[in-house]
């Protein structure tokens, strides 16, 4: 019952494997250790939430997994999976229409020109924005832009040839506080939305947040990180049926437990 999570999946099972990953910024005496020997295995199809206070290196960790940056030590193995990353900001290109943004992502995935328009339309339908293909990002609300960003991330996980959306074992979606800038109502609906897309596409999700309830609402497992440097403090499995309501008592109860642990961790920096 209390075996370590990192040892549980067999060696071949992980979709993302971090083994003793460290990341330092700067050099010499001024260097700042952002991540300290983080080991983490994410199983294919698993929804893992990374939780921590400021300075826990959550975003650094995602950058490393997305191969935007190199670790100072340790290894990261994504097994050749297609990795897409989305941020707190939608980061859509303002000079392109909604469909133009998606088509560019598809183009970069190597999807032939003739198929892009239709594939973009499918992706937009999958985030319930079918009627907004010709709009520009600034004409949409924050929540809608974030859904377009989600569709673009999904576009980056598409196969070049098949008409089918990406998914399955080879697809890892990294999300860096994607709903952090949204109001509670919108966030609530987007929780349902991301859960549905994760479920239907069989994605492997690594979801960074500082919102404890959000982590419990969404995750199969919540991984608590310490701050400065980021280390894995503790992992909490979330043994609850889906869909969960963010205001459900059992979500609140586990969130309270995790929050206590998080506060304890934060308190160490005040001493």
């Amino acid at each position: 019952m209390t075996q370590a999570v990192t040892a549980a999946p067999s060696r071949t099972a992980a979709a993302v494997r971090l083994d003793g990953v460290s990341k330092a910024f700067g050099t010499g005496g001024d260097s700042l250790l952002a991540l300290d020997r983080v080991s983490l295995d994410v199983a294919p199809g698993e929804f893992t939430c990374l939780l921590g206070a400021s300075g826990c290196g959550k975003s650094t960790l995602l950058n490393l997994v997305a191969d935007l940056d190199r670790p100072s030590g340790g290894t990261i193995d994504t097994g050749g999976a297609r990795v897409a990353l989305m941020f707190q900001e939608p980061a859509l290109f303002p000079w392109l229409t909604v469909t133009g943004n998606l088509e560019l992502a598809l183009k970069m995935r190597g999807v032939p020109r003739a198929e892009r328009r239709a594939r973009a339309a499918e992706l937009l339908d999958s985030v319930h924005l079918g009627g907004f293909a010709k709009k520009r990002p600034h004409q949409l609300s924050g929540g809608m832009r974030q859904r377009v960003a989600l569709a673009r991330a999904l576009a980056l996980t598409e196969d070049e040839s098949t008409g089918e959306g990406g998914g399955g074992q080879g697809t890892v979606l990294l999300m860096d506080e994607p709903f952090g800038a949204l109001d509670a109502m919108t966030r609530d609906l987007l929780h349902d939305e991301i859960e549905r897309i994760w479920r239907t596409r069989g994605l492997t999700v690594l979801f960074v947040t500082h919102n404890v309830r959000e982590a419990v609402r969404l995750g199969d497992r919540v991984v608590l990180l310490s701050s400065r440097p980021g280390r894995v403090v503790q992992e909490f499995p979330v043994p609850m049926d889906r869909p969960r309501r963010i205001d459900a008592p059992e979500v609140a109860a586990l969130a309270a437990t995790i929050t206590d642990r998080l506060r304890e961790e934060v308190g160490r920096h005040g001493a």
Partner: protein
Amino acid sequence: MARDTTARDTTARDGLPQDTVPEDTVSEGTVPEDTVPQDDAPPKDTAPPKDTVLRKDAAPVPDSRLQRELAGLDALELGGGGRSGRLLQRSWSAVWPMVTAVLIALFAWQVVVWSGWKDPWVLPGPGDTLPIFWDQVTSGRFWDAVGLTMQRAVIGFAVAVGVGVVVGALVSQFRVLRRAFGSLITGLQTMPSIAWFPLAILLFKLSESAILFVVVLGAAPSIANGLIAGVDYTPPILLRAGKVMGLRGLTLYRHLIMPASLPSFVAGLKQGWAFAWRSLMAGELLVIIGDTTSLGVLLSQARELNATAEMISYMIVILIIGIVIDQLFGVADRAIRTRWGVDQD
């Protein structure tokens, strides 16, 4: 700690080996038993039954309901829209302040004339000038002059754009060039272009080339600087998104940096035009070539003949041409801003 994991496994994880999901594993800090929900006792105080029916085959939140809720929220957040009024109304509200300003300027001019500060043949009023202005703009010689001047302006500006883009692209690309030439370009931008003419005349004699030389030197630094600023201020978050999308090298320029720097580049073009136009007028007054007729030539001849009304007419034309072309750049600039939503956010 009995748990029901089949709900997810049967609805969503088809084809995935169940043992790959670390469901039954807990790290050293075990969750207290009482925080784990009892499967068969859905929370009493939460919401309608359809939310708590989470049995094995129940799809979480029916898609159609989620779709309806999202559509509702989208509609609410986008608001009513439809803000633009009628075209006629909008153009009138743009035009009347301009018309008023022109009338005020004419009136002020007339007041100075009425004050008797200068004799009317030295400083004629609007009433004497406007008929002469009309005579001028209906004469062939005048349009020949405007044609030559505009030809020089267009050629000079085009060369300046070419030079500015090449220099700007190189300097923004290479850090060494940036250190070497960055401040030099800004310095050139602030240098009054008329100061180049003695050198230009020595190098090129009284020729078209002398004028072209100064026009290009006047305009190119602004254009280069606009491009450099645009490349520099490409939002970092977009660069990150571009990297995630796999944009590198040429595709990065083609799909991200070039479009992102467009507004700044257009601002640089606009400023470059202003400098080109000023340099050109200075050039046409200083470098008078043979028997050509340009706006500058007309202006100097009017001064030699003490024909103030003609002179003022040419000045008005020079002003109008400057304003019209500046407005064209303004239109391009506003079109980009509206398209991108820079004004709204």
